[in-house]
């Protein structure tokens, strides 16, 4: 036999091996192949689209990582004059902290609820509708002035240490860099609480009112009011002498840079103002015939006017109470302006600053569970009122505009139309930094891509025909 014989035997082997019903089987195989071919063609599209999507997600993740790695720390340049927003908006559940994204310049600070009802201090930008969370606020917010904005809006201070004790410390937050520095207050290790902070007009110093727990008291229940002056640049802390405590409560700064103390009015209606510094306490001004309920005083930047709120008194008909904003001219000792504040909630109204030394500015909340907050300027000599900032919209959680507004922003009187924030917001409690946000996005993308890839591979393997 030769190669022809081998060929013949091979043909015979093939013919006998396949069997007699070859046409039927070929038809069956052909039909099955056509179905499988169609399905396979569709599957290829699915695989291609899936692979493309996975690749896109992976590339996006890599780009996000690259962006996070290469992006320098965000530092907002110094802002221009700045202005007040005409509205502040409801607190959003996602909000950056100052550390995550500096805001540049702050117009005002308010306290409002964040996600889950946690009430926090929130700073509002002077040049853009941006909000930053500062710190959780204490439960008792009314007139709680342990957060304040520097006159130029570039620095914030947050008083730390609560009623439960703990170290008394001040956190200074640079709004342009987001960096914080801490200054400890001397408290003999007994702790206490910071009841008020107030920037000097030049922004170099900070007056602090603290209730320091008496270290000798075994149960730590007795406290003592102390006043401190902090040099912001050096962090040096100087306690005011004991005379300052006896002279009254700290209410602000005199034009010459001393801490203003107010005592009274007494039973004869006499209100004494003192000025204190490290060297001692000196008389500043005195008023007579001041109503008994006059309190929460504020001195105009030029030192000529003193504004205060008069506690409510029942109306003659007995169906309500009236309370007023009262402004005195210190040169004459006579009241020059009175405004009825009955349309505002009493416990949530305070004087937060001045415009042009003749216009006290109040923060107030209109009565009712959903009453909006307002910042209202009262022009003493024209007897007019102007709403500068309206907090949110009706039906939103209550706002407490308790912090001082940057004085030069107020002085400029620039009000801008605020727009609802459009940029994405983030929850500061779940994200440590903006970079971490990108890393999280990258890792999520990577995991998603791997899962897609595994799914596609498993699908292909399952579709592959058995090999025997």
């Amino acid at each position: 036999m030769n190669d022809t014989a081998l060929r013949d035997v091979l043909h015979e082997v093939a013919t006998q091996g396949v069997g007699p019903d070859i046409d039927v089987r070929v038809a069956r195989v052909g039909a099955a192949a056509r179905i499988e071919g169609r399905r396979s063609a569709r599957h290829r599209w699915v695989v291609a689209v899936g692979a493309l999507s996975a690749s896109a997600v992976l590339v996006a993740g890599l780009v996000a990582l690259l962006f996070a790695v290469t992006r320098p720390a965000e530092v907002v340049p110094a802002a221009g004059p700045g202005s007040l927003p005409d509205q502040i908006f409801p607190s959003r559940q996602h909000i950056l902290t100052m550390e995550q994204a500096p805001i540049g310049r702050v117009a005002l600070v308010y306290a409002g609820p964040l996600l889950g009802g946690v009430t926090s201090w929130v700073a509002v930008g002077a040049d853009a509708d941006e909000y930053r969370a500062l710190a959780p606020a204490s439960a008792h917010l009314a007139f709680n002035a342990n957060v304040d904005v520097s006159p130029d809006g570039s620095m914030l201070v947050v008083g730390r240490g609560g009623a439960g004790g703990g170290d008394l410390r001040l956190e200074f937050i640079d709004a342009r860099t987001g960096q914080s520095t801490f200054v400890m207050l001397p408290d003999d290790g007994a702790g206490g609480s910071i009841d008020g902070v107030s920037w000097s007009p030049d922004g170099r110093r900070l007056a602090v009112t603290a209730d320091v727990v008496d270290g000798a008291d075994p149960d730590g229940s007795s406290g003592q009011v102390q006043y401190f002056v902090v040099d912001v640049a050096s962090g040096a802390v100087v306690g005011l002498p004991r005379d300052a405590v006896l002279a009254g409560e700290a209410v602000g700064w005199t034009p010459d840079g001393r801490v203003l103390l107010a005592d009274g009015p007494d039973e004869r209606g006499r209100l004494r103002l003192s000025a204190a510094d490290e060297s001692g306490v000196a008389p500043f001004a005195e008023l007579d015939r001041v109503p008994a309920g006059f309190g929460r005083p504020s001195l105009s930047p030029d030192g000529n006017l003193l504004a205060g709120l008069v506690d409510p008194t029942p109306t003659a008909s007995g169906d309500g109470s009236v309370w007023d904003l009262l402004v005195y001219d210190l040169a004459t000792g006579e009241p020059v302006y009175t405004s009825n504040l009955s349309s505002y909630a009493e416990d949530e109204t305070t004087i937060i600053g001045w415009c042009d030394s003749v216009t006290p500015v109040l923060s107030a909340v209109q009565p009712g569970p959903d009453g909006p907050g307002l910042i209202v300027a009262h022009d003493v000599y024209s007897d007019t009122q102007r709403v500068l900032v309206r907090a949110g919209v009706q039906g939103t959680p209550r706002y407490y505009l308790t912090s001082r507004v940057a004085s030069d922003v107020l002085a400029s009187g620039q009000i801008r139309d605020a727009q609802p924030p459009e940029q994405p917001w983030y929850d500061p409690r779940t994200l440590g930094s903006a970079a971490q946000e990108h890393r999280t996005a990258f890792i999520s993308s990577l995991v998603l891509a791997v899962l897609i890839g595994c799914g596609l591979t498993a699908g292909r393997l399952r579709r592959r025909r058995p090999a025997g």
Partner: protein
Amino acid sequence: MSQDADRDFDEFVSTRGPALLRTAYLLTGDRHLAEDLMQTALAKSYRHWSRLRGGSPEAYVRQVMVRENISWWRRRRRGVETVVVEVPERSTVREDVDLRLALDAALRRLTPQQRAVLVLRYYADLTERQAADALGCSVGTVKSHAHRALGRLREGAPELAELLLDAPDAEGVHR
């Protein structure tokens, strides 16, 4: 795919399918595997049918079968070994049947590459170049596979000696 192409595909299967199935049988040595192999190759060809129908679809299908069978064999080798069918007793069968069964059994002992070379060269009547293209290898590799395949057939099945005595060795075939 258009209805024309579908009809064309069906016609191709009905006319060339039997020959392809026989080739698949020779490649796999198993009737069911042969059907699977042919179905896989036809399914892959179907996806490209609009392009293949104007050329030589049979060569493409055959090429896919050869390569797919080698791929299957590699996976089988890593996984479950298939049982090689024992050569049946030959004392009661006729000589030609005896010869066919011996060749069938001997083919199973070859590697898929060697078997493919024999099938392509002596069953499908391809030239060395065509066989090399189908296998995706060089002509020299085809020659060496054919040489070794014939040698192993001679060793494994002495009854084929006469058949293979004058069989063209790889070196002697130039078509």
